[in-house]
């Protein structure tokens, strides 16, 4: 029995410019104690998907189902959701400063959270708050509990947010870019804290990030999103070493690698990174067929016509990818590359001879 089972989640927002298709049918599941990493660039729909699960995307048209502890989150009333949000599923956001109220003491805000979900007195709540602050690694929690948010550093605020999220012993924690606003050494502390808490408390974690490094460290399973769709789902090592979808390949290639550094030292052409050309599409006017085709170096005729379903890729049972390339063309080695290009060549109509005056 999965802890959370989301299927065909679609979220769209009607606006005066047209309908924004923020999430276009994604499915995923998570088991207790596991970490699912959702990675994608800005506008890929990763945050909207998470917020929608908790009923935090007002004004959206939502379809699909999200089964959690026997109920469908997407069909629940506000009152029912309030019993789950914070209590069973908690969330940590990117910006801890704007998530904490500047006029209230940090401890008071955590106490309030505890008392909202538990029938305990003020003193018990305060004791629990101090215990939680200690758990998330804040030194001298007895004193710091009466501090205001501005007296905390960025890293401490994020620790306080995590303490608040853990206040009611949730079984699932959704962390939306929890370290993006933090420095590298503080990020390392927070990621370490999340891993430790997960080990000790057995909480399942959905980690949303644009940072492939953070996901590589945290996730058991990786879901790559592009333009509102899951384009690839795989266990962590498969996603990084044997990816199938050209977008995943492109993301990895965009990052500086040892190869690029070596090329730089030799003055070789590999010194340049290999970015994905172009930009993400508008979510109002999506490209036909596969939304990635205008930026895809392997795009074939068929890609303009039909959006590929998420189907099994070779190798690992759980590896799925939404691409028309042959399912066994996984990885970054020359063999896979040859497989890809063989198919691509036969899948493209020959370009018309160039006319004299290009537009």
């Amino acid at each position, binding site marked *: 029995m999965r802890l959370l089972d989301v299927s065909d989640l679609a979220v769209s927002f009607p606006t005066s410019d047209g309908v924004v298709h923020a999430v276009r049918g994604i499915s995923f599941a998570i088991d207790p104690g596991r970490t699912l990493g959702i990675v994608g660039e800005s506008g890929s729909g990763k945050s909207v998907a998470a917020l929608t699960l908790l009923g935090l995307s007002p004004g959206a048209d939502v379809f699909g189902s999200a089964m959690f502890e026997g109920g469908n989150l997407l069909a629940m009333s506000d009152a029912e959701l309030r019993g789950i949000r914070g209590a069973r599923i908690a969330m940590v956001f990117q910006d801890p400063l704007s998530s904490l109220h500047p006029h209230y003491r940090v401890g008071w805000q955590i106490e309030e959270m505890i008392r909202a979900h538990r029938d305990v007195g003020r003193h018990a709540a305060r004791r629990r708050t101090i215990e939680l602050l200690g758990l998330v690694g804040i030194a001298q929690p007895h004193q710091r509990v009466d501090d205001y948010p501005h007296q905390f550093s960025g890293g401490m605020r994020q620790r306080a947010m995590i303490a608040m999220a853990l206040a009611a012993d949730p079984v699932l924690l959704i962390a939306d870019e929890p370290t993006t606003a933090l420095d590298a050494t503080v990020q390392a502390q927070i990621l370490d804290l999340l891993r430790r808490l997960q080990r000790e408390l057995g909480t399942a974690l959905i980690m949303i990030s644009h940072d492939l490094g953070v996901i590589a460290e945290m996730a058991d399973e990786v879901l790559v999103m592009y333009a509102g769709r899951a384009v690839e789902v795989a266990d962590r090592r498969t996603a990084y070493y044997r990816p199938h979808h050209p977008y995943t390949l492109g993301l990895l290639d*965009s990052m500086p690698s040892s*190869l690029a550094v070596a090329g730089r030292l030799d003055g070789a052409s590999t*010194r340049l990174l290999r970015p994905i050309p172009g930009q993400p599409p508008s979510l109002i006017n999506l490209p036909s067929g596969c939304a990635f085709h205008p930026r895809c170096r392997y795009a074939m005729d068929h890609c303009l016509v039909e959006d590929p379903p998420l189907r099994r890729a070779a190798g690992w049972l759980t590896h799925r990818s939404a691409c028309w390339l042959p399912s066994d063309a996984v990885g970054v080695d020359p063999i896979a590359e040859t497989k890809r290009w063989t198919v691509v060549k036969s899948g493209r109509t020959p370009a018309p001879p160039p006319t004299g005056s290009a537009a």
Partner: protein
Amino acid sequence: MSAPDDDVLLRLDGVVKHFPIRTGVFAGRSAGQVHAVDGVDLTVRRGETLGLVGETGCGKSTLARCITRLHDLTSGTVLFDGVDISRLSRRQLIPYRREMQMIFQDPFGSLNPHRRVGSIIGDPFAIHGIADGLLRRQRVRELMEKVGLNPEHYNRFPAEFSGGQRQRIGVARALALRPKLIVCDEPVSALDVSIQAQIINLLAELQDEFGLTYLFIAHDLSVVRHVSDRVAVMYLGKVVEVAPAEELFERPRHPYTVALLSAASVADPDVADRRERILLAGDVPSPVNPPSGCRFHPRCPKAQSRCEVEAPELVARVADTDDHPTACHFPVEPTDDLARAAVVPMRRATLFPGEQQRQ
């Protein structure tokens, strides 16, 4: 340092920038000083890229603004092309401003939203009275083409461009007067991974074509490693280590550099699993009251009593070459436990990784 004088484009000597903290109704009373930059010696050689890394509040952006004289220095000198520009008046500065330009982090905040892109890029010509009318238009179009923008978009407003394209506008504006030095302050931090790579490549190509010198400020170590010839590390207003890029990443000497390297996330699951981490205790101290002696000593795993008293100088230590100075009494030796934690924050090559590389 070792570089002969005509090889040096920019030389900083004892650069200090303190900001007074003023309190009271009429902001008259001084309540102390923020020691943002506190005695920095640094050289930038012609045609090189000097990477400058450090965490929030370490003074790297303030230093950049001191170099370009957007801030006046509290003390110290800035020699640009052999001329001390640190005491020049605004008027006297004008010819030097042509030769040093800046690219900023935020492609949204650094462009006036009410002005057309063509006129933004043409500004440097207008300010310095270089090209007029049709000629200026022509030059701007050339620049737009050079940085990968469509010259037909001359009359558009910044809002009509994506983040990556706006950063290209910033690059074009910086490039307009063919400067010798471009100070890039976190030029890709606000961009998505795939777009980041486009801008990094653009900067590399422009450097080759125009022989530009870059001071490249960033907090993403893999990016810094990829672009830099040499790297300087800052902590609380001081440079703690300078070295050729490869050497800094392979053989870091300052414990803070080691901690910074070990905190960086790597988009490679196996590396992420194997590495050891140094988790620094606590947060960066306040630059209002920096710690005595070595500023890193309260958080340093190697600190001894001498470090509390005596501030170490930035000089080459025993076994180091002249171009690798470290401000530390007890630098990290290759045999130290600490050295093992400095895992190179670099994803392994994706082009032909082969299975045998993965163990």
